[in-house]
């Protein structure tokens, strides 16, 4: 099965000056309500070559992968395989065209065996159309051995394998369906150094088999190690492509961050006081280690880093949502050790989570009940809610945020995304906090609402509140923060004053590129 692929699609890796792309995307655009995710982007993948797709968070990489695998339909543009235009109306169509994606967390089935996972949906049939188990096992073993993964027993249950071996099974599945285009979306995120080496051997094998590989990673050392070509995305546009051998890391970083100034941030004169929140040596068994920082009164402290750098985890610990293994915290000189969100809220620290739908609003409850949710203790007397006071509280804070709603009794889920965000912020302000932690406050909202949120942050600090802003958007980090803390792989890398700081310095520090 697999050998047929080698003969049909493998081309001489060298010699031809201009190989024909196996897959080419051109003029692909995709919009979601309020957000333009991709704007006329193009991408070419060549047989026997690894192309790295590089870009900041929110650059549109995941959207493109979903278009390539038939999950999203592009609003405009063409997808061509071997020069012929194809339609991918669904995941199955992409599968038929030989496109397969291997994700961070593999989408295989833990309770099935390796062989069943490899052949799910296309198992060899025998007598009466029943599954031919012995042939399935034999072919599974052949595929695994061809990949140099003969140590994996086809009869093992997938749940008993490590993540690296699961990747091998995912690749074996790709091989068994004659996949010609393999997309690897941050495959190394959860792997150890040794496992990454094994994965690279596997990618070399895919190259030698003539597959076209799309490799998505944030880590520059990996990209230079394994990829041949690169394509850089920024804010949903393709801003550069070429051969990696002729391009320096600096040039790529510039492509990633350089942008037209189309966002204006509120001008403010910081009035920064003494230290308010002091965190020292905060550690977690698995997520972060020895994190120390200080938040001063009336300050916006930005936290920058790649996804998975541990920023949200640190903030959740500060807000009493997760336990720590060691370290201390003090608020205005008094030691605090919040054991629950309620403790932190009472002390004056609130955490506004990133995922609005899942962690923010309580859909199904009216607006005013959403606003009062963390303040219920304060607005009740001997265990009885004072409804008039509850309503007044909601009115005060939603008016302050200029919320557009017909009535405060309407269900919060009937509001637009931007207005839901306002309800979430009103809810936290109503607790009268001293420290407010905003995790990706403008992720996924339109430009107009973003500006409103930024304006509002400026007002908060002007009122004497202190803000910690976790953000992966460079313009936001640079435009709003007084100081910027950078985290990488669970550790604090540096804290800079935001004076004359440029985006490249931040990206280098966050990605661990030596200067």
């Amino acid at each position: 099965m697999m050998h047929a692929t080698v003969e049909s699609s493998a081309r001489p890796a060298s010699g031809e000056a201009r190989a024909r792309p196996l897959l080419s995307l051109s003029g692909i655009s995709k919009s979601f309500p309020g957000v333009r995710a991709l704007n006329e982007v193009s991408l070419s993948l060549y047989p026997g070559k690894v192309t790295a797709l590089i870009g900041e968070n929110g650059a549109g990489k995941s959207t493109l992968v979903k278009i390539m695998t038939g999950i999203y339909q592009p609003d405009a543009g063409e997808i061509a395989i071997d020069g012929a235009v194809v339609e991918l109306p669904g995941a199955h169509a992409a599968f038929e065209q030989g496109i397969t994606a291997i994700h961070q967390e593999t989408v295989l089935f833990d309770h099935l065996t390796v062989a069943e996972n490899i052949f799910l949906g296309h198992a060899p049939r025998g007598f009466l159309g029943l599954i031919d188990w012995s042939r399935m096992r034999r072919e599974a073993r052949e595929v695994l051995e061809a990949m140099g993964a003969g140590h994996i027993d086809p009869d093992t249950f997938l749940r008993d394998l490590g993540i690296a071996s699961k990747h091998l099974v995912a690749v074996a599945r790709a091989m068994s369906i004659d996949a010609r285009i393999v997309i690897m979306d941050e495959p190394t995120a959860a792997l150890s150094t040794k496992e990454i080496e094994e994965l690279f051997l596997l990618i070399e094998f895919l190259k030698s088999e003539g597959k076209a590989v799309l490799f998505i990673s944030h880590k520059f050392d990996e990209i230079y190690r394994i990829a041949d070509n690169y394509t850089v995305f920024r804010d949903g546009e393709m801003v550069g492509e070429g051969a990696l051998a002729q391009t320096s890391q600096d040039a790529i970083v510039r492509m990633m961050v350089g942008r037209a100034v189309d966002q204006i941030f509120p001008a403010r004169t910081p009035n920064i006081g003494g230290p308010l929140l002091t965190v020292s040596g905060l550690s977690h068994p698995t997520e972060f280690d020895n994190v120390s920082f200080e938040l001063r009164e009336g300050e916006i402290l930005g936290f920058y880093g790649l996804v998975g750098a541990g920023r949200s985890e640190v903030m959740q610990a500060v807000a009493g949502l997760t336990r720590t293994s060691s370290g201390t915290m003090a608020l205005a000189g008094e030691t605090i050790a919040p054991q629950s969100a309620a403790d932190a809220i009472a002390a004056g620290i609130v955490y506004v989570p990133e995922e609005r739908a899942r962690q923010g609003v309580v859909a199904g409850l009216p607006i005013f009940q959403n606003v009062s949710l963390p303040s219920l203790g304060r607005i009740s007397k001997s265990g009885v809610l004072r409804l008039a006071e509850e309503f007044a509280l909601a009115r005060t804070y939603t008016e302050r945020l200029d919320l557009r709603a017909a009535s405060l009794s309407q269900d919060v889920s009937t509001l637009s995304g931007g207005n839901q965000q306002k309800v979430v912020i009103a809810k936290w302000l109503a607790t009268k906090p001293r420290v407010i932690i905003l995790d990706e406050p403008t992720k996924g909202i339109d430009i107009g609402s973003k500006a409103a949120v930024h304006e509002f942050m400026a007002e908060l600090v002007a009122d004497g509140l202190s803000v910690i802003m976790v953000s992966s958007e460079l313009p936001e980090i640079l435009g709003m923060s007084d100081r910027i803390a950078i985290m990488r792989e669970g550790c604090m890398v540096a804290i800079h004053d935001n004076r004359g700081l440029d985006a490249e310095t931040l990206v280098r520090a966050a990605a661990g590129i030596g200067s």
Partner: protein
Amino acid sequence: MIRSLARQREIWLAAAIALLIGFVAIRFPAFARPANLMSVFNDYSILIILALGQMVVILTRSIDLSMAANLAFTGMVVAMTNAAFPTIPIPLLIVMAMAIGATLGAFNGVLVWKLGIPPIVVTLGTLTVFRGMTFVVSGGAWVNADRMSAAFISLQRGWFLGLPVLSWFAIAAIIAFYLMMTRTPFGRALYATGVNPTASVYAGIDVGRTKFLAFCISGMVSGLAGYLWVSRYVIASTEVANGYELQIIAACVIGGVSIAGGIGTVGGAVLGALFLGVIGAALPVINVSPFWQLAISGSAIILAVILNARGEKRGGRIILKKAEAT
């Protein structure tokens, strides 16, 4: 939006009950007389009380299958206590019943809260355990009328302000639950926990503790119902209320309490129980076999679930639903 839908459904359910009564009254006018309707309410008072307890649990995305078994055990203990010590005043016995019931409920709650076992598994287990305990304490023997004191039997049969005392128990429970659901932080926490547990944790609500307290409440009303049941039917046995948990859940579901949690009102649960009550009372009158009764209440449950599912789909935005699922 979801709220107003629920309210609408309560109106529909009330209309359906009125229609049913009217339909029977065409042939048998006596059925619609206030005295008869009052006796239907009285007959189903225990179901109303139990449905309210069950609703609180279902709101938190849990379920309590052990309520009827809890009722049987508590009823047995209370009846045996009365038989052995007839001088203990009845109000004290009622407090004791509620305390025993709440303790059994707390046992369910701890397993759900601290060990994270799915509520359906926990209460399926304790259903059997509580029935077994009933057998152990009684040795399989019955406690019947001649061993119960006169006060024990007559209290809930007495009349007060024109209504049987048993009905007053249900009315008191309705008022207490209504106040709890709408006027206390705990009531709000029940809804928030059911609709969006993650957001509730961030808002400082202890989701596990809320579930635990919900089970304590369902246990407590089971205990109360235990006394009411054995004194009304004047028998305590290991078979008391066998299978009744399904009636309790049916009342909630028909009343628009969403099995997915977070949606449900006191009015809905009460009307759900009354709907079953009117069907139960009407069918013998129009000479339909009791076996049909089961089929009809079963159909009502399925119809209610279909209506609920459609109502919820319209209420929430699809984008948010997807985000929830991932």
